[in-house]
């Protein structure tokens, strides 16, 4: 018998899932990101065309999500480094709240700056 989904319902497991899925999403985005930036080799006009294309509401939303995922992977990763490399006893749950809060703050800053 494999692990029951009810056993997974605790904060650190959700943090793991967030870290893995954000890592996967960012890895899938990277080729598009590099391709889009590579278009600068063909001059400003080509870049402007691409930037205009990303003005669509759906893509703007996806952009905000990507920034949020990047921030979440960063703060979640810092949390993991702290858990693996620093001596710890019992303070990992507050660390989790800090990581989530910081990621959300970055996402908000980006959304408001748009």
């Amino acid at each position, binding site marked *: 018998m494999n692990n029951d989904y009810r056993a997974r319902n605790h904060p650190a497991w959700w943090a793991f899932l967030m870290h893995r899925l954000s890592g996967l999403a960012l890895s899938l985005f990277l080729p598009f*990101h*590099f391709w889009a930036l*590579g278009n600068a080799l063909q001059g400003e006009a080509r870049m402007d065309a691409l930037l205009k294309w990303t003005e669509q509401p759906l893509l703007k939303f996806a952009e905000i999500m990507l*920034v949020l995922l990047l921030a979440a992977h*960063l703060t979640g*990763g810092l949390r993991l*480094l702290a858990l693996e490399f620093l001596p710890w006893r019992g303070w990992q749950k507050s660390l989790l709240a800090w990581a989530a809060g910081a990621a959300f703050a970055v996402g908000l800053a980006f959304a408001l*700056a748009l």
Partner: protein
Amino acid sequence: MSSGQAGYAAGPAAAPGTNAKFETWLWIAQRASAVVLALCVLVHLVTIIYAVRHGLTGAAILGRTRGNGVGLAFYTLYVLAIAVHAPIGLRTLCQEWLGWRAASLNWVVGAVALALFVFGLRAGWAVFA
């Protein structure tokens, strides 16, 4: 699931394409690149928010970046760290969620790392050179 395995003197049973030293070095590389990336991503996030506040057009972006040697060096390091970090994570995901533990996985992951590095460098060159 696993049942009682006999013969345990040799340490953990190794899946094909893995050995203790290799896995340990991958872990070290993953953590070392994570430390580099923590700094890079922080700078990148600040840059993103700065960029969208100061005009997101081809001319505005390239005007700020072209000929910026420090930027090129920074993003080269960033791309290198990504090319180390992301493929190792994807490898673990393939092993755990897809059950792909064959030696072929290491070659595919190596190719992904190389591709990320080359295309990342090209992107950095396009924007900063």
